Each structure stands twice: as structure tokens, then as C-alpha cells.
């Protein structure tokens, strides 16, 4: 038996706790509580096992990972293991002393999230008064420390028109990279889809804004589009169980952060099984690995090793069967459900905020 190739990156969701309550949060609807969170020794073991398995980069995420008092220790562990460490943070808990401790521990990169460029827009999404000022202050501290910084903007119907101002803010704050990520419609995002999904015109305008900024040079731009307006699916996670492994606050190991919606399969936990066993032989990681599981139209499609059948969680959420072709694909018999969602998104329901 040949083993699958090892994962490249680990998303370490240290906690689901967060001072913000964004209605598109990537955490699952069923949030894990503080009492269930792994302790420092277990996270250290996870990092050691990940490095041993072949992981090269660890993304410390959440929730807000800065609520964990052991974050600096875990960054040191990553450094000792030669794992490239990235902190994905809202920045609202960052101050000079904490940043200096993270810097000394060997943190390689920070991804700082912004909800908008305007205070009103940011507070409407994040739900935290004063957050924008704290984020700007955090960005200036990071800039002064020299730690490379990416600004992340999640965009949706309400803020998509302000993409040029987002780039201007990134340049003003001295970020090397900007990520303009259209909301992904899973979990909380899916609950709020009809309120957040941009129109096709808005999407086209946002793509033009990104292209115009790239043409200026001097700022590296990552652009993630919403796949509801596409006719071919995205190669979700670079293929199930191929490059990416996610560990939740309580130690569940997942092929992607949304995978807990997949029914009829056990979610292995690092407290019970080794990471390598989970990656290599667990039913969860093997259920959609490669191309053998594929139904038509994927099975005979020339793109099957490019998009890997798209996203399993989207197939689950929109067709009720995770083994179906991603309905974003126009060849899917369920593609009308995506088209219908685009039409329904013209209404304006209220936002539903994430909560425990």
C-alpha cells in the first residue's frame, strides 16, 4: 500500500472564542467552548507530529488565536521545529508587548483581518465598537516590527464597492500583500448568503478593481472569487486530503474547516489517534481522496485532476450528498440550485451574527 503524499500546511484553530461576531465566520455553526480546548502540551505534540509528517507551514488561527495565553509558546515550538508560522488575527487584542513577544518567539508572518475600510461598515460586520481603530494601530505596530504582513479583507455585497479603498489602506499601512477574499458560503456564510452574495455586476467590478491594482505593481494581491457565479468549481483545498490538514480547538482533525457537516463518518481526534494515522488511513481523509470516489460527470471529465470535483462541503450543503459533483459546475445536474441562489440573493434579509 502506498501512503498518500504528506500535507503541506496545518491550520491550527486554537480556539473558537473571538471578540468579533462576523456573520460569515468560517467556524462551524456549532462552536466549541473554552472547556473543550486542547491544552498547551497537546498542541505542542500536534505541532511535533505535523512537522514529522511533512507539514511546512502552520497557520495559527481561531476564533481569535490571541485569546490563548500560550500562543507565544506555541510559536516558539513551531520555530524550533522549523515550521513557518503565520498568525491569522483580527488584531484587536494586539499591543506592543505581545507583538514583541511573538517576534522574539520567531513568528514569520501575520495575516491581519479587516472587515471594511469604513468604521461603520467594519462595526456592522464585526459587531465590536472601536475595532477599526485598534486594527489600524495593530497594523502600524506590525509594520514597525518588520514582521511581513498581509491584510485580509473579506468582501460581500455591502463592502465590495470599496475594494479600491482597501488597496489604498494596505499601501498606506505598508502591507506587502493583500488578500481580497469574497465570502465563502459555508456555515455562517451560508446562513447569511442571501444578505451577502454580490450580484454578477458587483463581482465583475471587483475583479476589475483587483486587476487595476495588480497593474500598478508593488503590492502582491491574492484574490478569491465567490464560486456561485462560476461555471467550473474551485479545486477546493487543492484536493481532499492532499495538501491541507485542520485541527479544531478540541482536537478534531479535518480535511477542511467546514468538513464537520459531512454525515456518516467519524471525526478522529488527536487526543485518541496520531496525526499520521489520521492523515494516512482514517476513513475521513480517504473518503474523497484522489479520483476513485467520483461520480459522473466528474469521473470522465478531463478536469478531474485539476479541480478534484470541487468542494465536498458545498455538494453536501446544496445537494444533500457530499459525494456529488460540486453544483457550481454547470455539468452538475444540481447546477440550477446555485443559479437559483444567485437570483434569490437580490432580496435583503437581516444579518445573522455568529454566537455560541
Amino acid at each position: 500500500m502506498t501512503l498518500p503524499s504528506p500535507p503541506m500546511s496545518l491550520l491550527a484553530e486554537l480556539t473558537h472564542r473571538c471578540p468579533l461576531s462576523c456573520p460569515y465566520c468560517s467556524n462551524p455553526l456549532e462552536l466549541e467552548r473554552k472547556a473543550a480546548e486542547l491544552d498547551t502540551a497537546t498542541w505542542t505534540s500536534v505541532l511535533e507530529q505535523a512537522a514529522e509528517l511533512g507539514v511546512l507551514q502552520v497557520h495559527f488561527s481561531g476564533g481569535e488565536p490571541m485569546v490563548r495565553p500560550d500562543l507565544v509558546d506555541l510559536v516558539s515550538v513551531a520555530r524550533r521545529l522549523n515550521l513557518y508560522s503565520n498568525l491569522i488575527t483580527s488584531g484587536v487584542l494586539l499591543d506592543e508587548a505581545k507583538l514583541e513577544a511573538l517576534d522574539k518567539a520567531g513568528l514569520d508572518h501575520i495575516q491581519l483581518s479587516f472587515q471594511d475600510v469604513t468604521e461603520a461598515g467594519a462595526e456592522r460586520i464585526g459587531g465590536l465598537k472601536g475595532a477599526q481603530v485598534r486594527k489600524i494601530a495593530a497594523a502600524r505596530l506590525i509594520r514597525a516590527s518588520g514582521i511581513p504582513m498581509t491584510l485580509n479583507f473579506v468582501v460581500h455585497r455591502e463592502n465590495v464597492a470599496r475594494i479600491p479603498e482597501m488597496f489604498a489602506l494596505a499601501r498606506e499601512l505598508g502591507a506587502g500583500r493583500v488578500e481580497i477574499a469574497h465570502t465563502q458560503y459555508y456555515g455562517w456564510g451560508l446562513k447569511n448568503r442571501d444578505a451577502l452574495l454580490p450580484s454578477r455586476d458587483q463581482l465583475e467590478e471587483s475583479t476589475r478593481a483587483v486587476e487595476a491594482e495588480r497593474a500598478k505593481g508593488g503590492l502582491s494581491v491574492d484574490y478569491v472569487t465567490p464560486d456561485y457565479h462560476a461555471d467550473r468549481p474551485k479545486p477546493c483545498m487543492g484536493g481532499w486530503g492532499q495538501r491541507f490538514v485542520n485541527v479544531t480547538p478540541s482536537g478534531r482533525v479535518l480535511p477542511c474547516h467546514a468538513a464537520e457537516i459531512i454525515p456518516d463518518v467519524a471525526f478522529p481526534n488527536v487526543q485518541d489517534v496520531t496525526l499520521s494515522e489520521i492523515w494516512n488511513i482514517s476513513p475521513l481523509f480517504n473518503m474523497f481522496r484522489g479520483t476513485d470516489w467520483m461520480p459522473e460527470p466528474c469521473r470522465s471529465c478531463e478536469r478531474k485532476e485539476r479541480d478534484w470535483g470541487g468542494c465536498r462541503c458545498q455538494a453536501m450543503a446544496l445537494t444533500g450528498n457530499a459525494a456529488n459533483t460540486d453544483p457550481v459546475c454547470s455539468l452538475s445536474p444540481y447546477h440550477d440550485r446555485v443559479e437559483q441562489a444567485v437570483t434569490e440573493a437580490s432580496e435583503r434579509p437581516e444579518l445573522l451574527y455568529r454566537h455560541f
Partner: protein
Amino acid sequence: MTETPRIVTEETVLSFARGHRLQHDRVRDLWIVQAPEKAFVIEGAAPHILRLLDGKRSVGDIIQQLAIEFSAPREVIAKDVLALLSELTEKNVLHT
């Protein structure tokens, strides 16, 4: 390739920009450069060149050392080294 003024010459002293580093991936037995939110594989002569970057040696010193190490003509080595280091400097992986 278009002719642009060379930002890297034999006198340049280079090192990795913050957030970038050369690393041997022992699980896959590959050399990689770690960078913000990505890692890229480098092959052929590139790892031999990049491991000599220490922020002290000049590009000329690196060329000299590799010419001796690989018993290869200096001008051949120089061409490869300058091309690689220019490219990575333009991409902000390396800086002076």
C-alpha cells in the same frame, strides 16, 4: 527576456528578506523557500547558490566559490547565479 538595468551585480551583497528562508524538506527530500503563506520548491543549482547567501558574501564571492566547488567555468556559473539572484530580488524574496 527584456533588457532591464541589472539590480544585482557581482558587487551586490544579498540576504533573504524577512519572512523568507531556505529550508531542506527532509520528508520529501527537496529544497524549498518558505515565504508568506506559500513555500516553493527550488531545484538544480539553486539550492547550492542560495545556501551561500549570508548577508556578508558578495555575489562575486559566491560565483567564485561555486566555480571552484563544481570545477565549472566562471562565466557559466556567473550567468546562472546572476539570473537566479536577480529574479528573486525582483520578487522581493531577497534584498540588499
